[in-house]
């Protein structure tokens, strides 16, 4: 253990210097389930997503749907259920907000 520790002293640290060095981040993989984006024009108002959303984050709204993203649990089920692919998963993951309503705009 002592050797291991002393060796590590002279190795490069494993740390990704997020926030302390500009543009350094752990890479986000392609399939990452981040914030959802909704294409209102593509939506046909079948309301299937409301039936399958486990968190009750989707509500009906004038024959289409609207999202309350503070409830979203990022499972991606809505985009899988949607027959027209009107809901897409983006790779955005840094959702840090001061009030709940800002989540949608971030």
């Amino acid at each position, binding site marked *: *253990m002592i050797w*291991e*520790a002393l060796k*590590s*002293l002279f190795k490069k*640290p*494993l740390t990704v210097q997020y926030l302390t060095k500009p543009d350094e981040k752990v890479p986000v993989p392609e399939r990452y389930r981040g914030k959802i984006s909704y294409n209102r024009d593509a939506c046909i108002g079948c309301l299937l997503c409301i039936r399958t959303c486990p968190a009750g984050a989707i509500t009906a709204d004038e024959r289409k749907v609207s999202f309350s993203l503070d409830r979203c649990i990022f499972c991606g089920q809505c985009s899988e259920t949607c027959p027209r692919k009107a809901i897409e998963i983006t790779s955005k993951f840094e959702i840090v907000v001061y009030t709940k309503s800002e989540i949608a705009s971030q």
Partner: protein
Amino acid sequence: MIALEILLATLPLVFLLSLLFEGIDRKVHARMQRRIGPPIIQPFYDFIKLLVKENIVPTTAARSIFNASPSLAAASSIVGAAIPLANLIARTGIIGDLILVMYLLTMSSIMIVVGGSSSGNPYGAVGFSRKIMMLIGYEIPLLISVVSISIKAGPSLIYYDIILAQIKSDKCLACAYISSATAALTFLLCISAAVGVVPFDIPEAKTEVIHGPLIEYSGPQLALLKLAKSSTIFSLSLLAFTLFFYFPTIYELSIVLGEIATLGACLLGSLMVMLLTVTLPRTVFARLKIGQAFKTYWFFPLPMAITSLMLSVLGW
């Protein structure tokens, strides 16, 4: 009394140095774990932040003891660190200052647990009983090793006399005598228990007793306790280095920068001592149980300390 003035002047220096040492300790610890670690001035941030934070005194606490003990702990350990540093700079000493330093350092660690146990928290009480047991374990070998070295250097209980003895014989004591080498080893082994870091941080184990005595402290009080701890680390590593490994031939070479070079070399040496006896063990060992720690100290350092005392009396 020029010595007193120097002593007063060293107090802020001790404050700065001990926090700097803690910063280096944390950085090296982090690097050994393959992390970047906090910036070296992190302890200063922590200290200032805690100073300007709210201070909460729990209603269950014995107020006077609870409030007094952090300041007492910090004061005694800072003075305990300042005396050797001031003596090193002023090149003088008073009779019995070595004993005074050891006493002040013990006092500081006792004050911490006394404050903790007066908080009325059961974890503080557990921390108190554990600390007392640890004290019995490490304090005896620590003191015996100091006595052994002072016999070798005189006999004298003046801190600067021991350094003088090393300058006179042109050799560090630990290299010169077997007894001093044993005493040095004992002292080094006891440091990590005396300051309470990981293999022996049993009284303040985070996952067992939630920081033990520190549990109810907040704000400035906590800042003082943290300062007490880091200046104890600084003081003990300085003592260990100057008492046993003062290499006079190197320091006295440069006459121009004499004072500063000597002081710098001593500080560098004590930094090495700290890295070896505080940082390395806390990186590579797991925390022991109180019984195991106690046994460890009575089986290794205590017989070693007694041997070294006997050898020094015999003149080895």
